[in-house]
């Protein structure tokens, strides 16, 4: 077991891709202890690739990509401006609210930072906001991309934990909105304290109507996708396929941002992005197999039971582990590594896997914007020309909103379980 973990750590540190780090450490284990089991290698890897439920993954990636490519960001920002522009620190509120909408559409924190940050960070700077604040709020608000459904990490968790995608979509809704609201409040408090400006954009009636119409068209999509899954009208795969078709139609004919000739490229890009996650899923099957061979999940569950930890205490401990892991490991591999180890223990003490899933995704979202590893931070650094440390300092007050939500998820299970129970009727 120690050999497995040490070899994995070494491989990760020297920059071997996560998927192959898992594979190499598994190979090391097999060659050292169980060479007769090498035949397992192709079988387990194939079973990881051969998953019908994961087809939703590239489709959701494509759906977000197409909506993003169709150039809706400016409309979403304009729409947010209509609602929050007149408040002090209006641009900060616009930034957070636009991320809430964008999160539901794209499901990706890094494209959220790139799209919204590229427009709003320079704009906020021009309007007298400190650069650190502008970049910080952009990065912190991008965390909602993963938490507000539909979300790619949620699908990944559901497949790994064998949970219903619809339930977790619903489970993520309240925490996602709460983070947004906390960040809005924090922004308003800071803005009044520092006397940040209001926005005085004047739009024509036609522009306002066009903005509302476009934003509503974009907003319908996540609602439709989540709705069809939750109501059992379609599976996650089918709703994702519908979402893709909707994005294509809207992008081609309504927003006119996508060209037909660019569609194949978008498909290629989406399947390639998905492949880099699928190879981790596939090879992690070896790792998970070894973990269960060694009885690790059971060992962890037994230890937790023997410590007599209450569900809240266990979740708080796990929250800290997730936050630390998230600062070093990317979201997808973190989900694949943490879930099989801790889920049995979580279930053993009576915690809902949906509550754990909500905590895991929300926790990893914070990790994704914490140095040293954080694509969102790098993107914001490239836009604002600030050091990552400075951006993180700017993001810290807003991340308090995330941390408070995480703590509340640990202490108040209905935050994540109420909606799933309401719609599905069972725990």
């Amino acid at each position, binding site marked *: 077991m120690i050999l497995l973990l040490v070899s994995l750590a070494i491989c*990760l*540190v*020297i*920059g*071997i*891709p*996560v998927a*192959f*780090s898992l*594979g*190499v450490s598994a*190979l090391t284990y097999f060659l050292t202890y169980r060479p007769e089991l090498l035949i397992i*290698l*192709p079988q387990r*890897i*194939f079973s990881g*690739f*051969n*998953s019908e439920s*994961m*087809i939703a993954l*590239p489709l959701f990636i494509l759906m977000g990509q197409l909506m*993003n*490519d169709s*150039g809706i960001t*400016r409309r979403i920002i304009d729409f947010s401006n209509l609602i929050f522009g007149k408040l002090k620190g209006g641009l900060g509120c616009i930034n957070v609210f636009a991320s809430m909408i964008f999160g539901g559409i794209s499901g990706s924190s*890094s*494209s959220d930072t*790139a*799209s919204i940050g*590229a427009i709003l960070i320079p704009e906020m700077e021009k309007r007298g906001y400190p650069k650190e604040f502008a970049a910080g709020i952009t990065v912190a608000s991008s965390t909602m991309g993963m938490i507000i459904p539909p979300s790619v990490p949620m699908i990944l968790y559901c497949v790994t934990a064998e949970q219903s995608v619809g339930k977790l979509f619903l489970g993520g809704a309240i925490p996602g909105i709460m983070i947004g609201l906390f960040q809005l409040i924090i922004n308003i408090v800071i803005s009044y304290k520092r006397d940040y400006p209001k926005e005085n954009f004047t739009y024509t009636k*036609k*522009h306002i109507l*066009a903005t509302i119409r476009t934003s509503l068209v974009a907003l319908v999509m996540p609602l439709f996708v989540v709705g069809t899954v939750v109501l059992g009208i379609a599976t996650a795969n089918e709703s*994702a396929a*519908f979402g*893709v*078709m909707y994005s294509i139609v809207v992008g081609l004919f309504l927003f*006119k941002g996508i060209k037909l000739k660019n569609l*194949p490229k978008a*498909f*290629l890009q*989406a*399947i*390639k992005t*998905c*492949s*880099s*996650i*699928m*190879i*981790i899923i*596939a090879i992690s099957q070896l790792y998970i197999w070894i973990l269960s061979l060694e009885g690790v999940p059971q060992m962890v569950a037994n230890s937790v039971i023997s410590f007599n930890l209450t569900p809240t205490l266990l979740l708080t401990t796990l929250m800290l582990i997730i936050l630390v892991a998230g600062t*070093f*490991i990317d979201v997808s591999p973190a989900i694949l590594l943490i879930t099989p180890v801790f889920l049995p223990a979580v279930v053993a003490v009576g915690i809902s896997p949906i509550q754990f899933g909500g905590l895991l995704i929300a926790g990893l979202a914070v990790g994704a914007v914490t140095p040293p*590893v954080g694509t969102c931070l*790098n*993107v914001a*650094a*490239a836009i604002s020309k600030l050091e990552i440390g400075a951006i993180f300092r700017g993001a810290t007050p807003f991340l308090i909103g995330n941390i408070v939500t995480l703590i509340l998820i640990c202490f108040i299970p209905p935050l994540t379980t109420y909606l799933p129970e309401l719609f599905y009727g069972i725990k």
Partner: protein
Amino acid sequence: MNRVVRKIDKIVNRIVDIILMVMFIMIFLMVFNQVVLRYVFNTSIMGTAEVFTMLFTYSSALGAAIMLRHREHIKIAVFLDKLPMKVKKYVITFNYLVIGVFCFFVFRESLPWLNSIKTFRSQVTGISRAVESITIPIAFGMMIFYCIYNIFLIYLNPEELHLETTDADLEVKELLNEAAAADRIALGREKKDFQGETK
């Protein structure tokens, strides 16, 4: 010799890209078609799910191989990027060797495994299990080739692997380019709307 290998690499990349694209478009159409058939025509085509799952397995595995060629797999590059270029080259070479060894074992073990399952057939489509499972030796065989090829590139043509640029910078550049392209479209459309309005 160098030119021949490069040409082969270019052709293989192009072919795999086309295969991936076509397979994913087929998957999308099949899944979409499944819903339409069920809700509109109250019918379904037997075995569709099995076929698109097989296509997904193929495309994911082949895509993963191509991603290795372009050094685009998810990794923790923060320590690697801090190394001096000369040391970085050696470490990346070592990494490819290690990955290559792993892929070799998977490839080697997949051959007897394929042989053992070739007689199993799907009850719905009648397709041999070996047909879908063959993707493992194909993808991992390609990965072995790309490991060797990339090791050569590190010393012969490092620019092609973007070794001078950190992985984080490459990712950021790509994201910002995409965002800028989308924003240009939005601005162009807004301008058009505005012109229409003033007319």
